């Protein structure tokens, strides 16, 4: 462990099988408090599957996932979310038919039961929180716009905003900068660093520039297994990683 004595999220020997195909073949992962763990790996390495298993989207064949010491393996998605694990998906998974404001409102931390949602009022505190999130993701002017009318990069921001509003202890981000310009990517990296001052963050990323900007600890997945982990320079000098990425520009350039 790097930042903390006890890990907040702990994945032990995790196996996920899709009709015979072994997507994860026994992966271990520890995430400490307020730590950024960056996962890289070629396509099909099992990166998104790992996040899917953590949030209860993909059924776990064997192994365990512990959150704050509690076993959350194969719990329902909404229970896992309520416990404090938030997820941003690879393609912006936002509500196109709703306004940016409503998207953030839905994500706001709080009671999510049927009756509490009927009684819920848009309090000044909630409004302020939403406005501060909108400001943070630079979409204050577009707050009233339908998400469908936004650009791809802006939709990514909306989803990051949803994660901010949800305020989970562990933030899982699947390629948060896909489709963003270099400036937007950099700004996203700075936001992630701020998030990590009070949250634990797991990021899947391809862009090595971005990885270097944010990474504290790097985990390399390959064909459903963990190849290695360590600091950016340790990983880059690892011969196994070089072999897997042979000829890949990202690592060469790095």
């Amino acid at each position: 462990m790097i930042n903390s004595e006890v890990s907040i999220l702990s994945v032990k020997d995790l196996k996920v099988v899709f009709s015979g195909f072994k997507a994860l073949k026994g992966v271990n992962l520890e995430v400490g408090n307020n730590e950024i763990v960056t996962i890289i790996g070629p396509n099909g390495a099992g990166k998104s599957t790992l996040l899917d298993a953590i949030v209860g989207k993909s059924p776990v064949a064997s192994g365990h996932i512990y959150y704050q010491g509690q076993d959350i393996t194969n719990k329902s998605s909404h229970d896992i979310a309520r416990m404090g694990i938030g997820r941003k998906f690879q393609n912006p998974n936002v509500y196109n038919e709703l306004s940016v404001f409503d998207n953030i409102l839905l994500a706001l931390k709080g009671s999510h039961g049927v009756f509490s949602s009927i009684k819920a009022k848009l309090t000044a505190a909630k409004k302020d929180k939403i406005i501060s999130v909108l400001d943070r993701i630079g979409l204050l002017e577009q707050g009233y716009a339908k998400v469908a009318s936004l650009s791809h990069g802006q939709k990514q921001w909306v989803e990051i905003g949803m994660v901010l509003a949800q305020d989970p202890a562990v933030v899982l981000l699947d390629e948060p900068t896909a489709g963003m310009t270099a400036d937007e990517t950099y700004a996203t990296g700075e936001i992630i660093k701020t998030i990590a001052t009070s949250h634990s963050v797991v990021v899947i990323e391809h862009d090595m520039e971005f990885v270097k900007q944010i990474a504290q600890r790097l985990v390399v997945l390959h064909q459903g297994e963990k190849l290695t982990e360590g600091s950016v320079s340790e990983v880059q000098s690892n011969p196994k990683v070089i072999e897997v990425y042979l000829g890949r520009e990202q690592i060469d350039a790095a």
Partner: protein
Amino acid sequence: MAQVIGQIQQSNFIPKKWQIINLVALLIFIVFPFVAGTFQTSLMAKLLLFGVLGVSLDLVWGFTGILSFAHGVFFTLGGYAMAYYLKLNLSATANNYGGSIPDFMVWNGLKELPWFIAPLQSFPVAIVAMVAIPAGFAYAIGSFIFRSKVSGVYITVITLAIASALTTFFVSQQAYTGGTNGITDVSKLILFGMVVPPIGIYFIILAFATLTLAGSWWLTKSNFGLILRSIKENEQRISYLGYDVASFKIFIWTLSAAIAGICGGLFVPLNNFISPVYLGVTFGTQIVIWVAVGGRGTLFGPVIAAILLGQLQNSVDRITQDWQLIVGIILMVVVLFLPDGLMSLLPKKLLASSPNNLEKN
């Protein structure tokens, strides 16, 4: 910072012009029975009731994305509860057979009133049953289908199966349900010792329609309504935000069935009978058509569509028997050219009241 956004409207905000239109419409409906004849008053009461039945389907289909052909079932269950009450309260002289049990039971060889029907002699029990039986039935099947991983078109198929199965069941249990004929020749509704005239039933229905529309409007503009719409767009995403999608679906499904049940209960004193016809897929489809033609997710659309189509049927009926062909053509035209229904013909501004509209100063 906050000044950039300006005032955030209350989520249950109703646009001024729309309020006025609704008030005028309500006034017209209040005056209507004094201007129109008894026939038109009863017809309009029936169409209003069908419109509210459409509203109940709109809550689950238009807002939540669950297409159901079983709303006729909930309607009919409520209807039977009321029909038993009215049938059992026929005075002995009014009852052709003079016996203490309804005619159809006599014909089918029953000697005494079955224990599960007997409590419906009491008005309060009948009123509770009218709501609780359809709602309880909906809760049971809703818990089953929404907690399992069944979704989308398969749910619709299950509702079709339920409609068919219940029709067969009610027809087969002739001694208890009156079979194909259902429960006919029921007594008039008596409240506070007075026979309620058609105009009285009209106003009961109008009050019920107004309350249901207002309540549904408020509900769908609340945070709860926002969650329903997000379930419709992408139910998986919202579960990752910590919402238990199934409990929201079960709630709105049960509420919707309760409304449909009350519609059925109010239908009987108006119609003087209830039969398994209303359980079937044909009537279930009719409700779907009101919602589709009026506009999904509009609440008012299904009421407008039920009234327009009903009045049209009433006029066309005199000329040709094939009014269903005309309804079919209208449905095709709407689906092709007005996919969002009649309500989409209204200027967008009139209804621009999406929750939490952020208006710039």
